[in-house]
């Protein structure tokens, strides 16, 4: 199979992979929230959570295929339709992050009392939203 055909297959599967890595990010965030509530956060779990949050970000906004395909094929993979979807995912994710941080600012100003896990949930939701939004846009394309 020529590389360009493989690149097209990659484009077809990219949305699905984005969904799964974002799902893991959300599940990991829920584990962290549960651990914070229990007051027993295992030593390496938050580090793993932070590292894993980078995976959906790199997958959606990075340059997948850097290690595998030529520059021409990478340009095909990250063409203007992909950039449009990245842009839409960034907008939705930023909205979620800003909403979460706005609530945090209410606490700072003394108007609200938030649980300690709120910032963790905000970051996880922001990252997850970007991944899910990108996945939905990619997977809803006509074949």
């Amino acid at each position: 199979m020529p590389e360009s055909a493989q690149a097209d297959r990659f484009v077809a599967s990219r949305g699905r992979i984005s969904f799964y890595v974002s799902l893991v990010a959300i599940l990991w965030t829920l584990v962290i929230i549960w651990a914070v509530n229990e007051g027993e956060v295992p030593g390496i779990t938050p580090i793993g959570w932070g590292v894993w949050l980078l995976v959906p970000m790199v997958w959606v906004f990075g340059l997948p295929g850097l290690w595998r395909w030529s520059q021409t094929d990478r340009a095909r993979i990250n063409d203007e339709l992909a950039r449009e979807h990245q842009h839409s995912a960034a907008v939705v994710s930023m909205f979620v992050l800003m909403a979460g941080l706005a609530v945090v600012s209410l606490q700072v100003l003394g108007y609200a009392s938030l649980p300690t896990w709120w910032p963790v949930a905000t970051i996880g939701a922001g990252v997850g939203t970007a991944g899910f939004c990108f996945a939905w846009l990619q997977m809803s394309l006509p074949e």
Partner: protein
Amino acid sequence: MRAGKLEIRLREFRTSAGLTQAELAELVGVSRKTVNTVENGVFIPSTLLALQLAAVLGCKVEDIFSLPVRSSAAN
């Protein structure tokens, strides 16, 4: 195919040229899905991509993408 107020005749020109979506995508350097979404009016391409498509298909951009002709003139 119509995308909002845009008439798109990419599929006609592509089939006339005897190209598949994958072949056209390869020639203009985008993914096959991008060509497909343009043909189906899901995605309106940039000016650069529109010019590349026209150049590859040997026609003008306005042959592929055009505004719909109004049935009556606006006053």
